[in-house]
């Protein structure tokens, strides 16, 4: 009891908790769930954008996209490493993903249908992710906070790149390109603002997470911040956000926006989005197909070690 109180006091004082520190089992479990879910999102998130690597419209855009998807894999690496400090191995986490026990961000269950989707994912999806993630740079668990600092830096870069690629198309592109951008915005807008999760009134886990310094700002607050920022960016870009109810509310000092289709949200979270089964099947196949490679690498290492032992003897 007093250990818990001391732990909470450290958090309240703004201290970082480190791997060797004592922590409540539930804190540990919550963090493993959250960090691994975040890591899985990075890995699964490589797929929708990866879908356009072979078809990027210029070599420069291809290089930018390759580097971006690579960065996402890198984020996965840092995050798995951060989660591993909590005593769960990457293989265990992957197993949870592959068997459907662990989740990943539901946004990646939507398909990328045009090249503009790549830019819009950078702008809106990475933008929403950053809103969610910046507060985590001050998360109470040290390794996670430090991983997030690095992740956020790179994500901001990606967001700017995505936005810039849309700007080029909207400002210098053909009518067909502009229509492609608007179509992508139409498809990604609502899923993007769903990324902040259910309304605060319907959000599980949130209160405890706030107390533990794992979550710092509420879903609705973050969503509003994102909407406010994005409306301005959309104006600069010259695209319309597909929400007829969107308008400035002088009294609130914020943009009002329309009703989110939570049925769709829960349907996709529950497994019935357009790509849920395919995304998971793709990850599982990559893992299964790679088994012989991982086994061979292990066998080779053993052989090398035996050789060294022999030579030493």
């Amino acid at each position, binding site marked *: 009891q007093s250990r818990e109180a001391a732990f909470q006091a450290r958090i309240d004082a703004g201290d970082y908790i480190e791997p060797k520190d004592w922590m409540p089992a539930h804190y540990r479990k919550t963090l493993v769930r959250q960090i691994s879910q975040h890591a899985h999102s990075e890995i699964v998130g490589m797929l929708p954008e990866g879908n356009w690597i*072979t*078809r990027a419209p210029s070599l420069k855009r291809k290089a930018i996209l390759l580097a971006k998807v690579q960065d996402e*894999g890198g984020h996965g690496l840092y995050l798995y490493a951060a989660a591993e400090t909590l005593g769960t191995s990457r293989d265990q986490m992957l197993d949870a993903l592959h068997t459907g026990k662990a989740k990943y961000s539901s946004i990646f269950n939507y398909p990328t249908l045009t090249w503009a989707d790549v830019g819009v994912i950078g702008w809106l999806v990475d933008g929403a992710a950053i809103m969610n993630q910046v507060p985590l740079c001050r998360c109470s668990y040290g390794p996670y906070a430090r991983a997030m600092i690095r992740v956020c830096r790179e994500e901001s870069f990606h967001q700017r790149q995505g936005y810039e690629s849309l700007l080029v198309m909207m400002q210098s592109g053909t009518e067909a*390109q502009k229509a492609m951008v608007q179509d992508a915005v139409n498809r990604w807008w609502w899923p993007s603002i769903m990324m902040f999760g259910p309304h605060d009134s319907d959000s599980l886990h949130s209160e405890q997470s706030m107390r533990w310094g794992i979550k710092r700002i509420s879903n609705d607050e973050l969503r509003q911040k994102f909407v406010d920022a994005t409306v301005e960016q959309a104006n600069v870009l010259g695209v319309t956000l597909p929400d007829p109810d969107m308008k400035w509310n002088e009294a609130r000092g914020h943009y009002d926006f329309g009703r989110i289709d939570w049925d769709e949200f829960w349907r996709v979270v529950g497994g019935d989005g357009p790509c849920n089964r395919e995304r998971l099947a793709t990850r599982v196949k990559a893992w299964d*197909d790679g088994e012989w490679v991982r*086994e061979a690498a292990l066998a080779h290492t053993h052989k090398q070690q035996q050789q060294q032992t022999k030579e030493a003897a």
Partner: protein
Amino acid sequence: MKLSNTPAQRYVLRIADAALILSQRNAEWCGHGPILEEDLALTNLALDHLGQARALLTLAGKLDGLDEDQLAMLRLEHQFLNPVLFELPHGAHGERDFAFTVLRNLAASVWFGLLWQRLLHSSDAELAAIAEKSAKECRYHLQHATDWTLRLGDGTEVSKAKMQAALERLWPYVGELFEADAIDAEAQASGLGPSWDSLQADWRAQMESVLTAATLQIPKDRPNAHRGRHGQHSEHLGHLLSELQYLQRAYPGGTW
């Protein structure tokens, strides 16, 4: 698209296209690697080759006022001059065969390594500069491919069998990397770069050393039947280009 097709331009395009097409192939692993670290490594390799291709295409296009994208996205298939080896799918039937990927990258990095070394002394200063940067990148590629060849060749029975099968599939295509023709002769004479046949002995020695250490059997050499360097490809390149070029062709006149 009209190209001058001078021997020097074709010489550079052969190398540019080798890097471009191999990059496109290796990029297919992105998101599908056997372990996350390999996903990143193969993407890195694809990025390096893409960078090399961009520099070389820019160089090759100068003569006709064409930029890297016009060359990559608007040439027709017979205008691509890469050896066929680089355009083959990873697996014999469209699947991703990591064994083949590793062995092709080994063959490619030994070959590129020798080529960049020689191109350091190119009479074309720009080509020499590209070679200098590329040679550095190539050292890492070679190390990486060598490590994996050793691991998988001398790993499990299964991995050894997969590597040997992949090697048998790959071998009939390596001959094209060492063909010599008038274009090579002119490049050699002008000091632009080596005739490719002059790379063969060193390539062979380096490959033998790695493959033998990996306990793999070097297949019997086959007469070369491939003419990608002359613009006659396998049936695979057309499919690859239909993806590579689709967007530029479907949205003509776009700014990206």
